């Protein structure tokens, strides 16, 4: 019935005369800073600081060459990718069973616990800086990828549980029961039947975990020094005696967008579905 209504709505939707123009104007406004940054990344510094021009006069790949040869730059880029991926996977591994429990079982304090998970996200990250710093120093997690990944789980696990629980509750319990009657053990049912049913939720969750961890700077910078230093932290340190290296900064900016764009590309259909179905 819902499907029919959607179909009717789609048929009834009329093309507004300026829709196309408005869309492109909007897209151009959004894209302009990105294109500008890309333009900067392929210009020499003198041209960036020189006279204004829309099209680069001289193009160079020197900035990219510097980025991938200077260990300070490429290692921090790798650091970010490593701890972000670790975080996404670990958050998912923790959140999947938790979300299933919240969705399927009733236990003492379940509703309070679920709400408490959310309240974790209400605290500003800065609140956790000092405890993290001290604890990590003492247990040897300071300046490690694992340390950053764990710290980011503080924010991402509640979010992941929240998203996954919404999707899971949309799946009828009768599926679980049928599987139990058929003789599936819980882990086997979860992996073979249940997980494939919520794969769009998993995609959406991975995307959100990745995104939050990738753009988070404050905690990641505080609990790292060299070995796990995030790319964003390196970007704040481009000021040298010779001034700001604008071209290199723009290059780092362009490269920082790419992993996010790749993740979006893979989960774009899931995210669209996720917005339509679940709790995103």
């Amino acid at each position: 019935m819902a499907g029919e209504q959607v179909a009717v709505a789609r048929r009834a939707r009329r093309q507004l005369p300026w829709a196309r123009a408005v869309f492109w104007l909007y897209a151009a406004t959004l894209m302009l800073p990105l294109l500008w940054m890309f333009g900067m990344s392929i210009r020499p510094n003198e041209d960036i600081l020189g006279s204004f021009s829309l099209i680069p006069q001289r193009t160079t790949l020197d900035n990219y060459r510097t980025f991938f040869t200077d260990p300070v730059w490429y290692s921090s880029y790798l650091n970010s990718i490593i701890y972000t991926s670790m975080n996404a996977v670990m958050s998912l591994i923790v959140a999947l069973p938790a979300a299933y429990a919240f969705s399927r079982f009733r236990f003492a304090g379940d509703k309070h616990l679920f709400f408490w998970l959310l309240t974790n996200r209400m605290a500003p990250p800065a609140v956790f800086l000092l405890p993290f710093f001290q604890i990590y120093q003492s247990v040897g997690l300071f300046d490690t990828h694992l340390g950053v990944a764990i710290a980011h789980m503080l924010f991402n696990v509640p979010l992941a549980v929240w998203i996954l629980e919404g999707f899971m509750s949309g799946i009828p319990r009768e599926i679980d029961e049928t599987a139990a009657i058929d003789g599936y053990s819980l882990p086997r049912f979860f992996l073979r039947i249940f997980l494939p049913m919520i794969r769009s939720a998993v995609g959406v969750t991975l995307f959100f975990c990745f995104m939050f961890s990738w753009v988070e700077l404050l905690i990641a910078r505080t609990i790292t020094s060299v070995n796990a230093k995030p790319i964003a932290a390196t970007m704040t340190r481009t000021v040298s005696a010779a001034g700001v290296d604008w071209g290199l900064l723009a290059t780092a900016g362009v490269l920082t967008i790419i992993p996010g764009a790749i993740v979006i590309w893979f989960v774009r259909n899931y995210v669209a579905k996720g917005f339509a179905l679940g709790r995103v």
Partner: protein
Amino acid sequence: MALVLDGVRVRQRGETWLHDIHLELSSGMTTLVGPMAAGKTTLMRVVGGLLPPDAGRVVVNGKDVTAISVRKRSVAFVYQQFINYPSLSVYENIASPLRMARFPKKDMDRRVHEVAEIMGIGDLLDRRPAELSGGQQQRTAIARALARPVDVLLLDEPLANLDFKLREQLRGDLKDMFRDSPSVVLYSTADPAEALTFASPTVVLGEGRVLDVGEVADMYAQPPTLAVAATLSDPPLNLLPGVVREGRIECLGSSFPSPGAHASGRNVVLAVRPHQVTIERSGSDVLEFPAEIRLAEVTGSETFLHLMLADGRHLVAQLAGTQLFTPGERTVAYVDPAHIFVFDDAGGRLLATSAAEVDLHG
């Protein structure tokens, strides 16, 4: 195979959903009929092991299985909703209980094809459930339930979500299939016509209690209580108030001889099935009710005439064929006393029946 429910009681959220159910079922099909919220699904879930009862025992073949986990029981369950594993093909769906029971591959393959053929989905085995129609999805679910030989097969209103043509077709198939099943097959329905069609041993459930157990045709012809009569009547019974006076029962200005000897002044409830109400005088001893026509619903083969009686009560007459009436017109409804069930005002116990309205055994 034998299934015994011994004093099964279920309480949920402070309400009693099942009151001390005692039942003994043997192999073959048993129909469980009752209105919505009668406890049919709860009873099925208890038998299947999905819901632990608060009291009582579930005994299968002499063995108490109450405490045994559903994963270890020999049961199959078909839901009203079409429940299949969306990520698996139809073949894998049907095969999954066999796989879990570690059937040898060859036997499994043969069995899957066998039940798929029985259910008429033999050529759909490669599809995903989402690619099937509702009827085919439910056939898949039933096929999965049939695949593994089980002690107890539970079907909880399996046809309720299908449209009527598919329902009638599948109903016929199921009737043939389960008649001589070695398992205890418990089939629940809210549709009395379905229970009557299956004509198998029937349990009538109402408000969490077993109201009657027996042959459905007998219950239909001689309902022991008002609740059983109401459960087995579709369209709903017409109920009229009556009072016993000197060996006759008076009802809205008409009267007829009381079928039994009862004390004068006693209030009774008269129940008449809509198809026993006519607007043409059929004999001399019939009750007459002057009425006003409120509405005539034509379904094609039948016309449902909604009448308002002198005291504002409604009476529905189910007439054959398409008949046209003008609302507001006056008419007279006739009821043959032979077709009236008399229940007492309080407990609904049948005081005495008039002659059986139809000879269902003939």
